């Protein structure tokens, strides 16, 4: 499938050195996107975590032991491994902004996209979504809940993008030239340390565009060729090395 280029390419740069692993991004994501509380959340292979914080370790014993936290949303890959395999076009990358969509009413729940995604960013609705009495009042009217049996994933809070474009049109501005703060996903908005920076990777005025070009910026599993729109940033070499698979003879990218 051809690799589409977009004028606007929404992306993130996540500063791992700033992330404390507090998990606020995960909570904000769940609340914003109407992810129902699980009946039993102890089995992490069954939960819905569009944004998931991984704990990384340098594997060294004390006193050299170091840890880092890596929040993992959908990478919104430039060359998605998921949308090309979907048999029913339920996930696409064809909208200006470069966000990989997920069309819930069309998904047949075959889970081929999940098998294709190396980042485990896709989740299947094993259970019927149920909100305890009272909690249903907190539902976000902009994000549609999903039924049992379909796949879902992070969409960079796409409904916020729609709202920002609508507001720009109403104000007579160009919806394709949104200012940096006009559209921000819930995770980036809530991050207490400002570790998640969001914006247009193609707009040199946006902070993400500059950060993504830093020598400390890297992406997950870059050598697979998925071309993610989510960048990470760390000055620690061991963190950057954990972002991709390397043969023992190979140098970490950027070193």
């Amino acid at each position, binding site marked *: 499938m051809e690799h589409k280029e977009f004028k606007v390419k929404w992306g993130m740069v996540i500063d791992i050195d700033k992330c404390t692993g507090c998990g606020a991004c995960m909570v904000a994501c769940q609340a914003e996107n109407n992810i129902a509380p699980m009946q039993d959340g102890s089995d992490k292979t069954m939960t819905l975590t569009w944004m998931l914080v991984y704990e990384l370790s340098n594997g060294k014993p004390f006193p050299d032991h170091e840890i880092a936290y890596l929040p993992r949303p959908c990478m919104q890959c430039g060359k998605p491994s998921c949308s090309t395999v979907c*048999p029913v076009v339920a996930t696409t990358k064809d909208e200006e902004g470069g966000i990989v969509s997920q069309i819930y009413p069309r998904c*047949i729940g075959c889970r081929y996209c999940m098998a294709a995604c190396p980042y485990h960013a896709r989740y299947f609705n*094993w259970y019927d979504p149920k909100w305890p009495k009272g909690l249903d009042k907190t539902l976000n009217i902009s994000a549609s809940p999903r039924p049992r049996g379909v796949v879902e994933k992070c969409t960079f809070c796409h409904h916020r993008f729609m709202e920002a474009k609508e507001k720009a049109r109403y104000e007579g501005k160009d919806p394709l030239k949104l200012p940096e703060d006009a559209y921000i996903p819930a995770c980036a908005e809530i991050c207490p340390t400002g570790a998640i920076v969001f914006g247009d990777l193609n707009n040199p005025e946006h902070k993400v565009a500059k950060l993504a070009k830093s020598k400390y910026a890297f992406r997950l599993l870059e050598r697979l060729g998925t071309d993610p729109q989510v960048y990470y940033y760390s000055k620690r070499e061991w963190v950057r090395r954990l972002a991709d698979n*390397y043969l023992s003879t190979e140098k970490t990218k950027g070193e």
Partner: protein
Amino acid sequence: MIDKEWLPEGVQRCSFGKFMIWLAIWGAILLWGVYGMYLVLSKGLVTTNLNNYFGFGLWITFDLAVIALGAGAFFSGFLKYIVGIKELENIINLAVIVGFICYVGAMLVLVLDIGQPLRAWFGYWHPNVHSMLTEVIFCITCYCTVLLIEYIPIILENRKLSQNLFIRKLAHNFHIFMPLFAGVGTFLSCFHQGSLGGMYGVLFGRPFAYREGFFIWPWTFFLFVVSAIASGPAFTMLIATLMEKISGRKLVSYDVKMLMGKIAGSLLCFYIFFKILDTWYWATVTLPKMGLTFDQVFNNNAGFGKWLLWTEIGLCGVIPAILLIVPKFRRIPVLLYTAAILDCIGIVINRYVFTVQTCAAPVLPFDKWHSYTPNWVEWITSIEIIAFGVIVLSLSYRYLPLFPQERQLNKS
């Protein structure tokens, strides 16, 4: 016997009561499976042991395995009707019915496996022409229809039914057009087997499955086609032998079985040569390009050791290929059957590792290996397909003239 006039002419069958007990046993298993299906369809896939790591599990392995083993139908049909190997007419009816059972079984399993079964037809309504799975959906449904068309004339040949002039003429007309359906079936099934292989080969995010290839087709596309036709005829021959053991009657001459073994053996030699080449290239070029070593994509503790690969290629690949291709070995029944069993096991292992090990092997360097064990719901719904197959085959054997050689072989 109550059903005497429905039985094929000049053959012996067990008593009706005995047959009913046999059907009742398998019917009970089938009903247990139907209960499993009810659980899955009413409560969802949470009733299984599948999870976000193992979106594919026993069902998809079972699906791919039966599709490969059912390839005896299209390939025997191709060799009989298109290439013109006449001896295969002695086993072609069985090959068609086994293929039909395998394809219907695979379709049933797929209906269970997808999260939204009522949307299964979306594959036709919103097809993604770039997806190998779309090709799978097209081919499996079309070829299942072709197999039904091929099965109908066999049913119409029932002694009682064929007393009706219209039915007799209809069956005759079906036979006239059979080469056409054999051709269409060959095309569809070939692409189906291939696209199942392609499904895994295109997964560039999964180093265990990813393969380079020719134009848009990864090497797995071709390897799946060849491995299916290398095991399908062996499986059909084994089913015929199993039916002989159960019924206590000779059904197919040993010459025909040897011919099936020879066909499977020739193709297995061809397949295993390219499978070894493919594995070597993947281990030495493809994986290192992705930053991984051969050792890293296997893990004994998670149940995915290298022994699986050596068993698949060596014990269940090279050895049966030699046993089937050398006439001296083929002539010894125990070696012929052992080789055929190993051949089939090898192909099942191949489908298993491509389905489950692909999901189990971590790709993110900070992720870990995962293990998967199917639960009883997955097992019983798979066994249900076997029960369904036994019932269809038992009814077909009892009431239809499946084996042209049966009367001759049991004369004494």
